[in-house]
């Protein structure tokens, strides 16, 4: 089946927000990493074979306009709730990848009955009980995403020799990460206390070799969410959807069905 990805711009909170969309069926909002996202990924195509998939660029990342006022992923969550309202969508499922998982958690905590299913893949947002979330500020633009892959072949397959455009995009993404998640770094101390109201069934997925968000945080997420189960992907880093697209898509698709 050939997919027809469309790209649109939406006026939300005075900003131009970029969104890619493809597929049919139950709506699924995919929220990307702190490093932004490539426009197309096999993982996205797999989801779109079964669902109506919406992939916005976070405000300030990629092709979306920067909000000078934005201070936290909770602000981004409110902005996406606004986007879904404008699109007239309800019973949306959320798939949050890394930093996007934190945003998904914020969205669900603010509207406990609004979402159909919640999938978080190695989410930031909760302080890991053991270990710390890797500090991207002290490593190079290339070393940070590299550390999110179990094998360097997987990194190479996605990013190749890394273009200057990509380096620039990573610098902008990093700046937005700092603007929204500097202190406490990449987590919200109140979030674990607020996830208990979420009615949607939740799936917590983690790569077994995540060097960016320690896998100990999986337990914290499973404990905070009342209807959660956890899956681990073997030989996989932080960027599970890029390193193990088939496995990650299969888990998501089966869970959302």
């Amino acid at each position, binding site marked *: 089946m050939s997919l027809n990805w469309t790209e649109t711009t939406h006026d939300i909170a005075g900003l131009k927000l970029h969104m890619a969309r493809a597929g049919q069926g139950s709506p699924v909002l995919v929220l990307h990493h702190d490093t932004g996202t490539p426009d197309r990924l096999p993982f996205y195509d797999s989801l779109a074979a079964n669902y109506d998939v919406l992939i916005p660029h976070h405000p300030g990342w990629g092709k979306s306009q920067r909000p000078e006022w934005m201070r936290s992923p909770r602000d981004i969550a409110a902005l996406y709730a606004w986007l879904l309202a404008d699109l007239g969508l309800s019973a949306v499922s959320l798939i949050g990848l890394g930093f996007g998982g934190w945003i998904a958690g914020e969205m669900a905590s603010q509207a406990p009955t609004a979402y159909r299913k919640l999938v978080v893949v190695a989410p930031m947002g909760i302080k890991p009980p053991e270990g710390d979330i890797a500090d991207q*500020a*002290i*490593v*190079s*633009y*290339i070393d940070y995403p590299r550390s999110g892959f179990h094998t360097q072949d997987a990194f190479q397959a996605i990013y190749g020799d*890394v273009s*200057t455009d990509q*380096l*620039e995009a*990573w*610098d*902008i993404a*990093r*700046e937005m*990460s*700092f*603007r929204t998640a*500097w*202190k406490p770094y990449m987590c919200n101390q109140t979030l674990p206390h607020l996830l208990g109201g979420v009615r949607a069934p939740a799936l917590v997925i983690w790569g077994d070799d995540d060097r960016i968000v320690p896998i100990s945080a999986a337990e914290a997420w499973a404990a905070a969410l009342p209807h959660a189960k956890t899956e681990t992907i073997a030989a996989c880093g932080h960027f599970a959807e890029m390193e193990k697209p088939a496995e990650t898509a299969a888990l998501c698709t089966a869970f959302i069905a």
Partner: protein
Amino acid sequence: MHMMYFTEQPMAAYDSQAGLDYGATALTFSNKHFDPNEGSRLYNEYLEEYVLAEECGVDGIMLNEHHNAPFCMQARTNMFAAILAAATKRVKIVILGNPLPLTENPVQLAEELAMIDMISKGRLVSGFVRGGGQEQLANGVNPAYNRERFMEAHDLVQKTWTVPGPFRWEGTHYQQRVVNPWAIPMQKPYPRVWIPGVLSKETIIWTAQQRYPYIALNTSIEATKAIRETYNQAARDVGYEAGSENFGYLIRVHVQDTEEKALQNARQFMWMQGEFTGLANPVWANPAGYFSPSGRRAFVEFSVGRTTNPRGRMTFEEQVASTMIIAGTPDQVIERLKYLVQHTRPGIMAVWANDGCVSKEDRRRCIQLLCGEVMPAVKAYATSLGLKDPWEANAPVHLRYSTDIPTAKVAAE
């Protein structure tokens, strides 16, 4: 011309091989290599040398601070400024500067500076800086809001010094509900503020808009001329003509009785492998959001090793040849400094005279020759060129106190 003595206060007594082995001498280079016994010795020697500089006739002592690195031992510039306020009698105490974005409480900073001003009996020059990228990371301060915090903290300090309290400050980065510190500066309207910098155009323009002197930190003669052009234009845009009193220049100089010894010691200016702030990952010096977006593309390429440092990296010999380092006997140094003064025409000159592992004896001899012989000759030459410092020119402390701009005068009232 105002001439002052400066040293980074190097923690010279660390194992430099350990830094080379680790590949960095900043931010994450472990402080297990710091020896507090040597630190105690060096702090006290540096204090004694500042007092010696005063005895030998220097106009001012320039102080700064850095963090997490051996190249500078001063972690809180106000601490040495406070000590010197009591330990010296005549010299200006020139802080270049307090890194404003690092503070969470600009009111207390204003209070500390007021105390230094009073204890020194009105000898404080209170410079402010954004602080390098590594300073933000070492202190857990968000680099993406660095410039916003700098501007807002400056405005809060300025208001704290000039407007009777209590008042309330509800800003973007700072909120203080009862601003009313009892320590306020002795100098009126407030102590002179000088702004040092290297290359950021935004800072040069902002400095000109305040009518604060801009101190170029060891930039090349050509770059210094470009800085002055940017400053001059921004000054004209707000209604005044900049003069020598608006410009300062920091230059590395080492003087000894023989040229051979001077050159040998001057090589210590390269002790951090030629990098002022030590060996470091480029993303420490320029964390995302810290730098001007106009430089983003060039920086990301440099940061991953695809291009050379856009700021260049010259050898010792190249720096001596281009007058970025001056070393020699007093006569030789005077001649080179005159050449530099002729081409950069500053009203303020900071002399960074000792760095790295120069011996105590040689540091003291350098200070004696520099302050006793070189500076008087250079100051006389500057006078012959009509180069005045802010006091000689009776320059306003801030644009708003200008008497030559009718609108500024109205604004101050």
